[in-house]
């Protein structure tokens, strides 16, 4: 295993120490593993927080700040945070107006956040939960734990954060988050497996001429394995899967994310974005906003995901609202 680490068991805490050193404007509690906005809690403002396993950086800690998350609670690598930790973050951002939990749809995340919400409710904090399940590679059937939460999480966090910043109620913030989720679809393809510090070796072996199609962000193999194809065809598979699952009427505006899984360089992501944009254009979709980069990652996995979010005027307005976080910043 080739990583810039000291001890596999200490990676998350030591990375948090780096976050603390790099961003003095965030409050990082390394013991509790929570990252909180310096000005939280703000009386009367709905707190927005998210969390999940580590290994998806900049998600979620990189999105804490003005106009986005009030707190993040990163678990161990690929392991959802524990209820105590989520509760601590919830308390840290509760300004009396309720707290919105943004939860990616994984069994572990859902259960731990649910337990934390119960604990918070015992303490009189109103918690609303937005479940993100945008990954259309996983058919939502009795055969699975449901669709996974992936790239759309970023858009949900941006939109809910902006709405909370504007003073909306917890119910309104949560409703907007759920709407973004419902209007989003993602699909991912990997060229290599990632290596968790704990396992020390790649999760699977992929021959030089093959790719995993329909992967998640936890290093698991995808829905199927196929021969490696040119970027143009990969983009087409991806866009077809997305529009197949959540069709968009011609003329619809969308926010599009071409996201790297951690080990894919920007030059390839831009090349893919060019292909994706051309395909969406052909399908009559108007790309109103886009983001190209490594945002919702899977450690060092070489791979990419595409997220398309149907956007109305409200979503675009909230997307454009000022944001000041380590990984996403504009307007301020």
């Amino acid at each position, binding site marked *: 295993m080739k990583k810039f680490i000291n001890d596999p068991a200490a990676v998350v805490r030591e990375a948090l120490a780096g976050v603390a050193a790099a961003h003095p404007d965030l409050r990082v509690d390394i013991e509790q593993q929570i990252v909180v906005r310096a000005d939280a809690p703000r009386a009367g403002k709905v707190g927005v927080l998210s969390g999940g*396993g580590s290994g998806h950086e900049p998600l979620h800690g990189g999105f804490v700040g003005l106009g986005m998350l009030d707190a993040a609670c990163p678990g161990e690598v690929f392991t959802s945070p*524990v209820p105590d930790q989520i509760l601590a973050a919830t308390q840290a951002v509760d300004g009396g107006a309720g707290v919105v939990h943004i939860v990616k749809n994984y069994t572990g995340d859902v259960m731990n956040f649910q337990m934390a919400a119960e604990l918070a409710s015992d303490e009189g904090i109103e918690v609303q939960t937005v479940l993100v399940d945008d990954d259309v590679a996983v058919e939502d059937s009795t055969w699975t734990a449901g669709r996974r939460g992936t790239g759309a999480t970023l858009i949900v966090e941006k939109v809910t954060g902006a709405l909370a910043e504007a003073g909306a109620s917890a119910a309104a913030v949560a409703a907007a988050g759920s709407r973004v989720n419902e209007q989003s679809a993602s699909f991912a393809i990997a060229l290599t497996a990632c290596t968790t510090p704990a396992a020390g070796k790649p999760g*699977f072996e992929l021959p030089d001429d093959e790719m995993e199609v329909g992967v998640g962000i936890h290093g*698991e193999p995808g829905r199927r394995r196929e021969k490696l194809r040119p970027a143009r065809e990969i983009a087409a598979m991806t866009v077809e899967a997305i529009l197949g699952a959540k069709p968009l009427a011609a003329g619809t505006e969308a926010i599009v994310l071409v996201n790297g899984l951690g080990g894919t360089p920007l030059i390839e992501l831009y090349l893919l974005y060019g292909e994706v944009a051309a395909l969406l254009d052909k399908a009559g979709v108007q790309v109103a906003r886009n983001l190209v980069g490594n945002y919702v990652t899977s450690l060092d996995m070489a791979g990419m995901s595409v997220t398309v979010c149907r956007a109305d005027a409200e979503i675009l307005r909230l997307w454009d609202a000022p944001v000041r976080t380590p990984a996403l910043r504009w307007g301020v």
Partner: protein
Amino acid sequence: MDVALARSWIAAIAAAVAEQADYLTQLDSAIGDADHGVNLNRGFTAVVTALDTADPRTVAEVLVKTGTTLVSKVGGAAGPLYGTAFRAIGKALPADSSTVDAAELGVALRAGLAAVQKLGAAVPGDKTIVDAYGPAVAAFEEAADDGLPAAARAAAEAAAEGMRATTELHARKGRASYLGPRSVGHQDPGATSTWLIFQALADVAA
């Protein structure tokens, strides 16, 4: 089972999980996210410390403390599931007696299974903890009249069989379900750790 035996059981689980942590993680690597062994090892290490500090007076307290600690230290799917299971087992035991008999433990183990299924909504055949836990409880109940050692041995054997049978299953719950039919051919990590738990019981009860 008295408090000492209950604590031996937990200590034996902790030892087994520590020893098999890499194995569990490798199983999870094939169809999940390669953290099951690390997670449980972190959890049971914390449980051993927590029990030393808390010095519980009843079997029920031992098991509730175990569950509570797992919930707050493990995370992922296994943390809430095993945590809730141990809490439910503890809560189903007589609250004030310092020993429990095999029949009482059988009832409590059944309550633990119910709690896991209530929380995780898995049914037998979904390729989860339930596929080892279910048969183990049934075997335990059936042999309960023969006393704890026999019941625990029967439970461990049934858990092992259930665990092995998960290999051929197509996962419907947890991360392995994302793989669809590709989950077939791999033994479930959670069912495997469940077997370790029942095997530890058989070992300390023997």
